[in-house]
């Protein structure tokens, strides 16, 4: 289940790239610089779009790494253009996909350390369900909502992406 959940989180992030296609299209149509969207926010004390993507991506990168007993790759939060944001999304998705099912063995019982609570740990399954999944969706949803609020023609189908219907 861990493998599948992390893959699904990666898909949620990947969908933001699809939303960026629509953002560029909208900017082109309405003749404004698409970069404006990247520093947009819904409230003055909220992080802007790029930061939301970085946070969402990090919860996936750290989630995948910690639950599979690896050291997460180090990346700087220095994206400023749409292209750079796309690359950040792509390398996050690729990293999540590079981890195989068997590498998550024992993940549920693994003790995970979280940076912001030094000295404390959380069980792997709690980490996945209480931190990784809600935080990924929190940031991905906020990024989506920032575009939506600014008139970009994104909808739920863009948010959800692939469904394994048969």
């Amino acid at each position, binding site marked *: *289940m861990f493998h*599948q*959940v992390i893959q*699904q989180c990666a898909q*949620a992030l990947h969908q933001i790239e699809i939303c960026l296609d629509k953002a560029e299209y909208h900017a082109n149509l309405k003749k404004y610089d698409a970069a404006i969207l990247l520093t947009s926010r*819904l409230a003055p004390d909220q992080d802007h779009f790029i930061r939301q993507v970085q946070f969402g991506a990090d919860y996936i990168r750290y989630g995948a790494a910690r639950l599979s007993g690896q050291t997460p790759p180090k990346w700087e939060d220095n994206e400023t253009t749409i292209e750079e944001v796309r690359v950040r999304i792509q390398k996050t998705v690729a990293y999540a996909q590079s981890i195989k099912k068997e590498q998550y063995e024992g993940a549920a019982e693994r003790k995970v350390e979280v940076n912001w609570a030094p000295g404390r740990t959380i069980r792997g*399954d709690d980490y996945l*369900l*209480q931190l990784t*999944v*809600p935080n990924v*969706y*929190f940031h*991905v*949803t906020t990024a*989506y*909502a920032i575009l*939506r*609020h600014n*008139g970009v023609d994104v*909808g*739920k*189908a863009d*948010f*959800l992406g*692939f*469904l*394994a*219907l*048969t």
Partner: protein
Amino acid sequence: MIARAITQCARALQNIEVFLDKAEANALSNQYDVGVLLTSRLARDQYPFIRQIQIACDYVNFGAARLSSQTAPKHEDNELTINELRARIRNAVVFAIGVEDREYEGASERTISVNSVPGKTIRGADYLLQMVIPNMFCPCDRRLCHPSP
């Protein structure tokens, strides 16, 4: 894991009640009617706040019900006030949390029919991860929202 995931979804819903407390406090201190927030939306063609909550409650209710082979409780979607909304959230949480772990046995492989795509089915695990969880978190559109979970 399915039971834990649904419980976690129910907790996310429960947290909305905390937001509602803060909304009421904010409305009081800034002297506006909190009802204004209930019909607010981030974009003109997005559903208002109340509808977002109703839909999120439905995904949790239907998720818990379908994955445990039960019938989900019916709701009229007639909430108008903040207290009615609180009650709706509580009902959803109580129902979801009330489903026992053992009732989810075999849920991952269960074939689920979804109202929004007639004739199609989805495996239980995919239903949980691709529909219940993402939809619960997604702000809903008028255009593209699945009318029922």
